């Protein structure tokens, strides 16, 4: 239970640290008169997020290159780095609504992703513990499998999360595309 709380705390801290790092970087860029760097971090961050979706393509079988596990790690790393870059690009400026909705949606998507990471790790941990308990109680392999199947509540939690995470990501994608489109049209 303690390890679950610790893991949740660490992921929450990671999410918050992305915001803190973005505010700090933005302040540094303003101080150094390098606002233009923040501007270009938008396209760069977007590109990183787009590349991170290689994992989604692999998971759905649209492509067959790379190991899903490694691509998941890549997805997490690129999405987090891209989110940081996009946050710096947005800066602490409250102007047009659309880009801010996009930033807000992005941070929800990042939080959702971290929640997925938490659920996945917790499910693995719980199933491993349960399997050890059942083995120690003397149950044979067949009965252990039956019991584990019945106890796989957290795995089902992951299934529910997958259903939610994608629309959240789609919401961010739609807002980002609209922001980019309007920025290009009204350059």
């Amino acid at each position: 239970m303690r390890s679950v709380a610790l893991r949740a705390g660490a992921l929450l801290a990671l999410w918050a640290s992305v915001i803190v790092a973005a505010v700090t970087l933005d302040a540094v860029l303003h101080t150094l008169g390098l606002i233009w760097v923040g501007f270009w971090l938008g396209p760069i961050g977007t590109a990183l997020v787009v590349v991170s979706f290689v994992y989604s393509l692999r998971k759905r079988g649209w492509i067959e290159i790379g190991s899903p596990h490694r691509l998941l790690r890549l997805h997490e790393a690129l999405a987090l780095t891209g989110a940081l870059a996009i946050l710096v690009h947005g800066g602490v400026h409250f102007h047009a609504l659309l880009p801010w909705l996009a930033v807000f949606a992005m941070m929800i998507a990042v939080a959702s992703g971290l929640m997925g990471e938490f659920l996945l790790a917790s499910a693995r941990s719980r199933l491993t513990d349960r399997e050890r308990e059942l083995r120690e109680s003397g149950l044979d392999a067949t009965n252990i499998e039956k019991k584990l199947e019945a106890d796989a509540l957290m795995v089902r939690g992951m299934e529910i999360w997958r259903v939610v995470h994608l629309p959240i990501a789609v919401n961010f994608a739609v807002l980002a595309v609209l922001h980019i489109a309007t920025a290009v049209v009204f350059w």
Partner: protein
Amino acid sequence: MRNLFVMIFLLAAYGALVVWIPEVTVSPGDVIEGHEKIANDCTECHSPFRGTPAAKCIACHELEAIGLATTAGVPVAAAEGEPPFHQALIEPACVRCHSDHRGAERPGASISFTHELVRNDVLSTCASCHGASTPKDDLHRQAGDDCGSCHGFEAWIPATFEHETLPAERQKACVSCHGASTPKDDLHRQAGDDCGSCHGFEAWTPATFEHERHFRFDRHHPASKCQSCHPSTLDQYTCYGCHEHSARGIAREHREEGITEFEDCVECHRSGDEHEAERLFRKRRGKTARQ
């Protein structure tokens, strides 16, 4: 399939908001004062996919009148140090300096004038824009209109004045330009106007005055007590300012040694070292004898 519907729905919903209230969803801030009437008509200034062409600005702001009169034709007084210059620009590129929406921080759009935008023929005539603010002191009056020979475009200082460009007689007349800043201490007051005998054109320090060429300081003859040896002017000295050296005593000591010419002490006494003085005296006497 469900996610595709979600995407289409969101795209339609957000798209409708963008079209319905662009000033809230897309505009990066309020337009500047005077542009309120066109605040909600993006295409008044923006050409889709082509940015904000200068032609759209010039349609209202006639280039010839910028800085001289408002769009309504009312004359405007040029602010001090900010003369009208838009007419001298290489090309009208308004958004390189101006950003209409407050808060929009586009790279290169921060109202920062740069001389790179000005035509070459105007660049060489600084006074045509800065005439009222050019300094009127003696040095600058003589420099004429060629400000660029010393000053850069970025800032008035630092300037890179080359003394060698002055006529020879002006090069020697340091105080005519630096009069106010010349040091007033005893040493410099007595040095007179010939600053160049110790100081160079590049910098005030290091200076090249070598007292040791005439007399080496030591603990009995410290550098800090100029007045002991130079009671009146620095180009004259006396050794009799010290109680140990009296005219009578010195005359007696030198005559005992057969030395009759001892008025210019430092000719032999380059320091407080007696032996050195003896060596120098013998050297002088030998040279005189050979002649």
